[in-house]
C-alpha cells in the first residue's frame, strides 16, 4: 500500500502520454499534458511526505515538531507555475489555429502539410 503514490505517479505519466498520442482535439491534448505534469506533482509530494508530519508552518506548532519536507513543496509550486504558463501559451496557439482552420483536430492539421 505504501507504494501506491509512486504507482499513481507512474500511471499518470503514461496515461497522459496516451492521451496526447490518441487525441483528436488540441485542447484535449493540452489538458493531457497537464495530466503528465500532475504525475510530477504526485511524485514530488510523495517523496516529501513524512508519516505523522504536520505542514511545515510553524505559526501554531512548536519548532522541532515533525513536519513534512518543505523543499519539495516549494519545487511543486514552481512546477505549477511552469505548467500553468505553458498551458496558457498552448491554448493561445490553439485559439489562433482554430481561427485559421476552423478546426481543432490535430490530424487535420498534419494533413495540410503532408
Amino acid at each position, binding site marked *: 500500500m505504501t507504494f501506491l503514490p509512486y504507482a499513481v*505517479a507512474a500511471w499518470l*505519466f503514461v496515461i497522459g*502520454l496516451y492521451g*496526447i*498520442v*490518441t*487525441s483528436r482535439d*488540441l485542447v484535449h*491534448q*493540452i489538458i493531457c*499534458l497537464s495530466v*503528465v*505534469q500532475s*504525475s*510530477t506533482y504526485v*511524485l*514530488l509530494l510523495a*517523496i516529501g511526505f513524512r508519516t505523522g508530519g504536520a505542514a511545515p508552518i510553524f505559526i501554531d506548532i512548536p519548532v522541532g515538531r515533525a513536519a513534512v519536507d518543505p*523543499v*519539495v513543496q516549494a*519545487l511543486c509550486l*514552481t*512546477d505549477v507555475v*511552469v505548467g500553468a*504558463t*505553458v498551458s496558457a*501559451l*498552448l491554448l*493561445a*496557439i*490553439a485559439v*489562433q*489555429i482554430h481561427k*485559421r*482552420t476552423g478546426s481543432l483536430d*490535430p*490530424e487535420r*492539421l*498534419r494533413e*495540410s*502539410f*503532408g
Partner: protein
Amino acid sequence: MASLPPFPVAVPLIVAAGLLALNGVLPRRVVDAVALVTGVTVVIVAAVLLHQAGGHTVITWFGGWTPQHGTTIGVSFVVDQIGAGGVVLAGVVITVALAMTRRTVDPEGTLVHALLLVVLGGAAGFCLTGDLFNMFVFFELMAVATIGLAAYQSDDLAALRGALNFAITNSIGAFAVLSGIALLYGRTGTLNLAQIGRRLAASGNPDRLVIVAFTLILVGFLIKAAVVPFHFWLIDAASSAPLPLAMVFAGVLDLLGVYGVARVYWTCFGGDLRPHAAAIRTVLIVVGSVSAILAGGLSMNAHQPRRMVAFVMVSHTGILLVAVGVLSGPGVAAFAVYAVGDSFAKLALLCGVGLLGGSRRAGWLIVASGVALAGLPPLATGVGKAAIDTAATRAGAGWAVPILVLASVLTGSAAIRVGLDTLRSASGRVAGGGVLWTAGGSLLSASLAAGLLLPGWAARAGQRFVDVGRYQALVLGGGPSSVAVGRVPAVVGRVPAVVGRVPAAGLTSGGTVVDLSAVAVAILLAALPDSARRVVAGKGRMGATLRALHSGSIADSAVWVTVGTALIGVVLAASIR
C-alpha cells in the same frame, strides 16, 4: 569582482522587464539599441567571468546560504571555463539575433526583444548554475520564452503548428527531467550537483533508482537537444520560425541540451556510474551517430532551404553528442571547439538563407557556410571535428568516426548545393541585406579565429570540467560565499601542475587530411546533377517513408519520445548491473 556571476542572468531579465514597461513609449531605434547594448554587456561580463574562471572556478552562494551542517540548503552558481564559455557563446548568438530583428521581423513594440533577452538570461543561468533544480528552472525559462517567439507569427499556420509541437514535446522532456530530479532528491536529500554526486558515489553500486533517474534526465536533455528520435519538433519549428528564432535554436538551445547532459553526468553521476562508463558511452555515441547520419541524409533531400537547415542542426547536434558521449576530458574540449565553430557556421548559413532573394552574395555566403559545416580546417569546425575523431578513437569508439565524417559531408554538401543553386539563378546584384551579409561574414571569420585560438584553452577547460573530485571539493569543502571567494585557499585555487601536459584539442596531420577530403567530397557531391545525387542520397521507398515520418504530427513526436525513452531505459538497465 567576486559578485559577478549573477549579472549575466539578472541584467537581461531586468532589462526585459524594463522594455515591457516602456512598451509603446520608446521609439524602435532606442529599443534596438538598448537590447543590443544589453546583449553586448552580457558577452563582456561573461568574458570577464571566463577569464576569472581560468584562474580558479568562481563560486557564488545566493543569499549567502553556504552549506550548513554538511547539507547544502541554498543555490550556488559554479562558474568554470566551459560554463562561462557557454554564456559567451549564447550572448553572441542572441546579440546577433537581436541585430537581425530589425530587418527580418515585424516590429511589435518591444515584445520580441524582451523575449530574446529572457532567453539570454535563461541560457546564462543554465550554464552557470551548480544546482540541479535551478538548471530545470532556467531550462524551462528558455523554453517558455522561445514558445512565444515561435508562435508569434500567428497568421502562419506552419509556424503555429511548429510552436505547438515544440511546446508539447519540450514539456514532456521537462517533466521527465523533473521526475528524475525528484528521484535524486528522494535518494540524496539535496539538489546541489556536487553534493548529489558525492552522496550517490558514497552509496555504492548504482541501483535501479539511479538508472531510472539518469535515463529520465538524459532523455529530457536529449529532447531539448533534438537528436533522433526526439528531433521531430525541431524540424517543424525551425523550418517555419522567423530568422532570429531559428538562430536561437541553432546556436543556443541544441547546444545547451548537450551541455546539460555533460554537466549532469559529470557532477552527479560521474562517480557512481564510472564503472559503467563504457555502456553509457556506447548509448550516447550510438544516439549521436544515428542522429548525425540520418539527419545528414535527410538534409540532402529537403525541399526548402529552411528545412535543410533544420536537418543540418539535428545532424550536427548529433556530432556534438558524440563528442560529449566519449566521456573524457579531450572529448569535452573537442565539444567546446566544435560547438563554437558549428554555431557560427549555422548562424552564417541562416544569414545566407535569410538573404535569399536572388542575390549572388547570398549564394556565396551559403556556399562558404556549407564548406565550414563540412569541416574545413583551420576553422573551428574542422579543428573540432578532428578533435572529436581523435577523442572517439582514443576511447575505443573509432567505428563512429566514418559515420561522423560522412554526416558532415552530407550536411555540408546539402548547404553547398543550395548555395550553388542560388548562384546559378541569381539575377545579378540585389541591393540590401547589408546587415545579414556583414553578420554572416563576421561569423565565418570568427569561426576561423576560434579554430586558431581555442584548442589550447579548450584542452585545459575540458580537463577541468571532468575533474569531479575537484569540483566537489571546491563547492562543498568549506564552500565560501561570494564575498570570500577571493580567499579560496591556494591549494584549490590554481590549476594544479599535476594535471601535466594536456594535449591541445587541435589538429593532427591525419585529422587535417580527413577534414580536407571530407570538404572536397562535399563540394563534389553538391555539384552533381540532381539525378546522380538522387542515387547517392538513397531516395526511394526508405527515403519516402522517412520523409512521411516527418510530417509534423504532435502525436507522432510523442510516440517517438516514448519509444526512445523506453529503448534507452531498457538498454541502460540491462547493461548497468
